[in-house]
């Protein structure tokens, strides 16, 4: 593009730093608005792992718990890799 070419001539980088700013701001606000501290998320992750471990064998190291924003809602996103489903007897689960 001619515009890109001109921008290069005048020493302008083609990557937009404002997009970086906006994305960083978006993520930091997700946490600010939910007033969720890193400690809170850490504690939540530990508890989730504890509960899920009763039913499944999971990869604790690779597990991630974070907040993300989709459109107008804030979502809790948990990525917990499952190694194996435990076989629990019917009576125990009831």
């Amino acid at each position: 593009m001619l515009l890109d070419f001109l921008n290069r001539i005048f020493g302008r980088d083609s990557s937009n730093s404002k997009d970086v700013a906006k994305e960083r701001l978006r993520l930091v606000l997700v946490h600010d608005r939910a007033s969720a501290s890193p400690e809170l998320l850490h504690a939540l992750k530990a508890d989730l792992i504890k509960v899920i471990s009763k039913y499944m064998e999971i990869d604790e190291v690779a597990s991630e718990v974070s907040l993300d924003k989709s459109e107008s809602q804030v979502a809790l996103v948990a990525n917990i890799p499952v190694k194996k489903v435990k076989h629990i007897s019917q009576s125990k689960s009831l």
Partner: protein
Amino acid sequence: MSKVIVVTSGKGGVGKTTTTANVGAGLAALGHKVVLVDADIGLRNLDVVLGLENRIVYDIVDVTSGHCRLRQAIIKDKRLPGLHLLPAAQTKDKTAVSPEQMQELCGELKKEYEYVIIDCPAGIERGFKNAIAGAERAIVVTTPEVSAVRDADRIIGLLESSGLSSPELIINRLRINMVKAGDMMSIDDILEILAIDLLGVVPDDDEVVISTNKGEPVVLNEKSLSGKAYRNISRRIKGEKVPFLNLESEGGFLNALRRIIGLK
């Protein structure tokens, strides 16, 4: 229209005091009786921005503690007949005034002035709580930076939970050439994130620095673009519908070149 307006931002250095001075002077120039209240106790600055620093006898703490009467502490501007200042105390701290005292003070001022504009200190502690205690309407000032917009978001939340719903935004120090180059968040970017109403946009302007050096509000400078922006904001506060300045039409070599080769 509410009359007691607090100008706040969360982050320091984004232009709260400059905004307060210019909006106040702008409303006074439109013929209104205005009093500006410096709530930044301990870090008094509104007086120097307005060029009234040599005329202070009493301050806000003298009033709330009963050392003088309200009328004795208020300074009348000599350039604009409608403009008045209630200065902050410089030797005390934020705890020298309570939120209840501020409410009472605003109630008194409201009886005599058409607009009471409060310059809020930076931060979210006691000084902020004092400044918003008597307010009926809030203006949030931000600049197009990640830190300032983040703090503005926090302040908007605090204002809303304190009953000051629908605060309005002023975007200060916008550099249109940087926005065009994709290196500064645009007005739309900021509005999308903060989701509040826009009261005005003030371009980054050397004239603001020059005016502040002299202690003359830039709003009185007919030639400056920032002065025009503040005059428009003052009229919007009154409830007038004023179109936003077209900052896009501003010059710059690259833009001139773009126009010539038909990219704009």
